């Protein structure tokens, strides 16, 4: 269920790489329990926006505000570096397109899942072990493989470990960048269903970047369409997809299979 309080807000965020403008004056807000999809072609600036909103790339101009510790909206880039790292570690979760970017391949699957808990201060071994097993079964992996390294897992299994790692410490906000990209269709469907279930069950606020409109339709309450770093259209997901107003969105929707 979508709450009233705003968790994350962007005000006129502009991201530049040298002379190239990746995101141009983007504003948005995200409420508790809401899933916002960002779609657009490659190079439209959606990943740059996500990176900037998730505290990993300072915008050239504009502000990123987050409800830090439930104490009200605070400028993420006004925080000290250690404090910003704490927010990212404890209050946010990340799911990268490539599981190897989100996992540590040399420690066990179970270790990967509970490491964020450890960083949030959990010290009790049995609790962590229990959480690891619980999350493995939640993401439909064989609990007997808890001590194996992710490098011994298939891509789809690695992605499920990454999702467990991103959610186990109960973040308030999760950023996802193409969470089902690079997976075959049957694995994609399973992962999507899993994500959809977890998002509802845990009441997560999610910002998900995807170029796949079917993924957006299934997961997102609201959609933003980006082109050349700008938001060309935004609104209710099915409204944007079924009755697109902007020329680019119409092209995008008519090109989708």
């Amino acid at each position: 269920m979508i709450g009233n309080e705003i968790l994350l807000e962007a005000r006129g965020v502009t991201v530049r790489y040298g002379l190239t403008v990746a995101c141009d004056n983007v504003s948005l807000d995200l409420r508790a329990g809401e899933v916002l999809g960002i779609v657009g072609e490659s190079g439209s600036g959606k990943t740059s926006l996500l990176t900037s909103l998730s505290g990993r790339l300072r915008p050239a101009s504009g502000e990123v505000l987050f409800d830090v510790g439930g104490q009200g909206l605070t400028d993420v880039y006004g925080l000290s570096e250690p404090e910003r790292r704490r927010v990212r570690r404890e209050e946010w979760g990340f799911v990268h397109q490539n599981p190897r970017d989100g996992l540590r391949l040399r420690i066990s699957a179970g270790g990967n899942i509970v490491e964020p808990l450890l960083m949030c201060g959990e010290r009790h071994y049995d609790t962590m072990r229990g959480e690891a097993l619980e999350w493995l079964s939640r993401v439909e992996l064989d609990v007997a493989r808890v001590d194996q390294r992710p490098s011994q897992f298939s891509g789809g299994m690695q992605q499920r470990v990454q999702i467990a790692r991103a959610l186990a410490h109960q973040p308030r906000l999760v950023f996802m960048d193409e969470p089902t990209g690079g997976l075959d269709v049957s694995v994609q469907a399973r992962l999507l269903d899993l994500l959809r279930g977890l998002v509802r069950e845990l009441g997560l606020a999610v910002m998900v970047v995807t170029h796949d409109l079917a993924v957006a339709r299934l997961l997102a309450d609201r959609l933003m369409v980006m082109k050349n770093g700008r938001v060309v259209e935004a609104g209710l997901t099915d409204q944007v997809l079924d009755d697109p107003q902007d020329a680019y969105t119409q092209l995008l929707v008519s090109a989708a299979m």
Partner: protein
Amino acid sequence: MSDNVSLRITGLAKTFTLHNQGSAVIPVFGGLELDVFPGECVVLAGRSGVGKSTLMRAIYANYRTSAGHVLVRHRGEMVDLATVAPQQVVDVRRVTLGHVGQFLRVIPRVPALGIVMEPLLANGWSREDAEARAKALLTRLNLPEALWSLPPATFSGGEQQRVNIARGFAFRYPIMLLDEPTASLDPANRDIVVELIHEALADGVAMVGIFHDVDVRERVATRDFVISAFAAQTPVEVEAA
């Protein structure tokens, strides 16, 4: 304003602009006015292409309106779906405004029973109660029990549609939109849907529907709403409802 109107449409217009097809502008309808009260089933009439489904989609906020208002009584207040924030549309659809279309939008891997339970769980029902209600509806609609635990992707058209109807009628929405719910059903199941509609009307649900099946239409309609051809075009004769 009458104090118990459930759905009020005023000055509603819809025009499509196709930017990639020579910026073609397609006016569908304009200036529509309609009030729907509790216990009424208003059936949309008018020749094919006159915009019946477009009106349904505009009421559900699936299409944007070009002008006018779609007011629904939501949590005791009139909310204009043409102007409210998307988050509130999500809430209106969860609590107040139900929709049964011609086809089930299949969600990969979710079993039939789960699909029917979803609207109930979203409204705070316990898993146990939701399951009991879903099972009762699927039984009534003659969906074999062996299918309940399977995702409907492989079901026949009629079976999928019965799952769709069960989902649509599981939670008691005060306002319901029915877009040809009986199109792919055999006569026995069509009778059940007519029963479900009558029960909802008796509970005070306000309905708007499209039914091409004359028999069903006559049995459920409390009145017709004729959409006339768009004002800007030359008037066309409307088929008698």
